[in-house]
């Protein structure tokens, strides 16, 4: 029922959830564009594996794409930021489908030549776990430092935070850039394990999955307590990864896919419903 692939999926989704949670909980921005960053990282790995470009070019390319999209999106705030990131997600997905000569179109790139240990379950798990440890260490450092406090100030009252002298725009840019790079890393890890890159990795559903996991982990989020937050992200990612195989044992065949989609949609709805979300918070936090 459960395999090593589920563990690897869980690690990748935890990374993506951490990236989404950094924006959602720490900075207060809702982004639908992490799937685009994931797709960028995946194709960057694909080009590297195929020998099309060197590693320096790949890293520079990823940095340029993530930086450019972050700078453009941060010219606006709130709902408009979310819509622009959604547009970026659609643009990159369409480009990945349309640029057949470069990206292989709908079929994508693959099979990719990579080191043998990357293709094994143990190797992929070790690499993903190592990346997660590094990201967690950085997240912990940010969360327990003045940077985390200032990001919280930006989330709660950007005007006041700017008025007291903090460079809010630069910090927002660093946070969005960091989030995008972590998402790109998750994409590269996925491409490295599966040996295949397809435009499906950049669908809006991928961003929604990470968003749902980040919202599910909300009760465990605390300002200045990054470890409990990260544990929440890991737990939420685990729920989303484990639900499909568990459902398959009850409803084999098409029924599982239908039920899984319905449950996912229901989860999204409940997590933003004002009264239901408040009850979820009360149940996990207790009444104030």
């Amino acid at each position, binding site marked *: 029922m459960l395999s090593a692939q589920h563990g690897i999926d869980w690690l990748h989704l935890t990374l993506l959830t951490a990236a989404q949670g950094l924006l959602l909980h720490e900075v207060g921005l809702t982004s639908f564009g992490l799937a685009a960053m994931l797709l960028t990282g995946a194709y960057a790995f694909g080009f590297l594996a195929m020998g099309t470009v060197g590693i320096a070019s790949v890293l520079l390319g990823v940095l340029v794409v993530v930086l450019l999209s972050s700078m453009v999106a941060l010219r606006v705030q709130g709902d408009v930021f979310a819509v*622009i990131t959604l547009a970026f997600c659609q643009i990159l997905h*369409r480009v990945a489908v349309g640029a057949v000569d470069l990206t292989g179109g709908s079929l994508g790139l693959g099979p990719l030549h990579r080191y043998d240990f990357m293709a094994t379950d143990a190797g992929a798990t070790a690499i993903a776990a190592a990346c997660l440890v590094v990201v967690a260490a950085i997240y912990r450092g940010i969360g327990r430092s003045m940077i985390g406090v200032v990001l919280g100030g930006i989330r709660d009252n950007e005007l006041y935070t700017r008025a007291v002298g903090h460079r809010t725009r630069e910090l927002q840019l660093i946070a969005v850039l960091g989030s995008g790079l972590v998402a790109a890393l998750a994409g590269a890890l996925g491409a490295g394990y599966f040996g295949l890159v397809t435009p499906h990795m950049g669908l809006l559903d991928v961003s929604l999955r990470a968003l749902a996991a980040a919202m599910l982990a909300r009760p465990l989020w605390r300002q200045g307590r990054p470890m409990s937050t990260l544990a929440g992200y890991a737990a939420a990612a685990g729920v989303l990864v484990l639900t499909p195989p568990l459902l398959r044992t009850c409803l084999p065949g098409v029924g599982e896919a239908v*039920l899984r989609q*319905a449950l996912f*949609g229901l989860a999204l709805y409940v997590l*933003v419903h004002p009264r239901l979300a408040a009850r979820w918070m009360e149940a996990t936090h207790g009444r104030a």
Partner: protein
Amino acid sequence: MLGAIVAAIGVAIITWTLLEPMVRQPPLTALIGSLGLGYVFEAVYQAAFGAQPKTYESYPVESGLEFLGTSATRLQIAATTYAVASTCLVALLLRSRSWGHRLRAVAADPELAAAVFAIRQRRLAWVTVLVASVVAAPAAVFHAASHGVSPTTGSEMGLTAFVANIVAGRGRPIGAVLIVILLVIMRSMAITRPLWEIVSIIGSAGVVAFVTKRRRMSTRVRPIVIVGAAMLAFCATLTLRTAIPSLSRGLVVPGSFQDVVPYTFIVIALLVWPQGVLVARRSRVV
């Protein structure tokens, strides 16, 4: 058609019951909640009717009618006529009926509308959902007759409609219709016209939009002036291409990138007018 309208009313009741708590939340909350409900409905439809697209097998294959240098089937003409008529009807309702006045008041300032004019926002929102469902039902029938219907029908269009409303700005439903038409035209023109022509048309409209905003032109007249400028630019480029045939051989966007053009326009429009293309910019505090 009647069945579609009745079904739409039924879905509106269910949707309103589930989405009503999010009416006073930010638009993003309602978007995510709607997306979640959309996934649930898709799953229910798939469980009930299967995932394969279904078509109206009894609908005959039509030949196109030629006019104005293009061709269209009777179904397409009927769908276009309905779209224009329903848009005009909704615009008329918004301007002439008390429901429309109250809706515009709530869109402008919800708190003022509730406190000063005692407008019941929940009841108003319910009526609006009902009207929207009744207007959308025949359009869905036209779309299904030409494209078939599957559980995922309408999801992409719904997302585009939401984005168009954000681009148009708060309280501009008819403006959102114009934005959607513009996006569709851009999508079609992108692969049939040279890039310089598209840039000229959009650039002309952009310059006129900027100038009219600087001169504080009335928001009722401004969209008409902008659209007029775009049409003038279109005619000018057409004339140029006719007079200088070599201009027809400019760079054309490949067909596979057709969908990139409207989304790129959305990004540019939101960067320039984050409050909405058709809404006056509020003064900055800092």
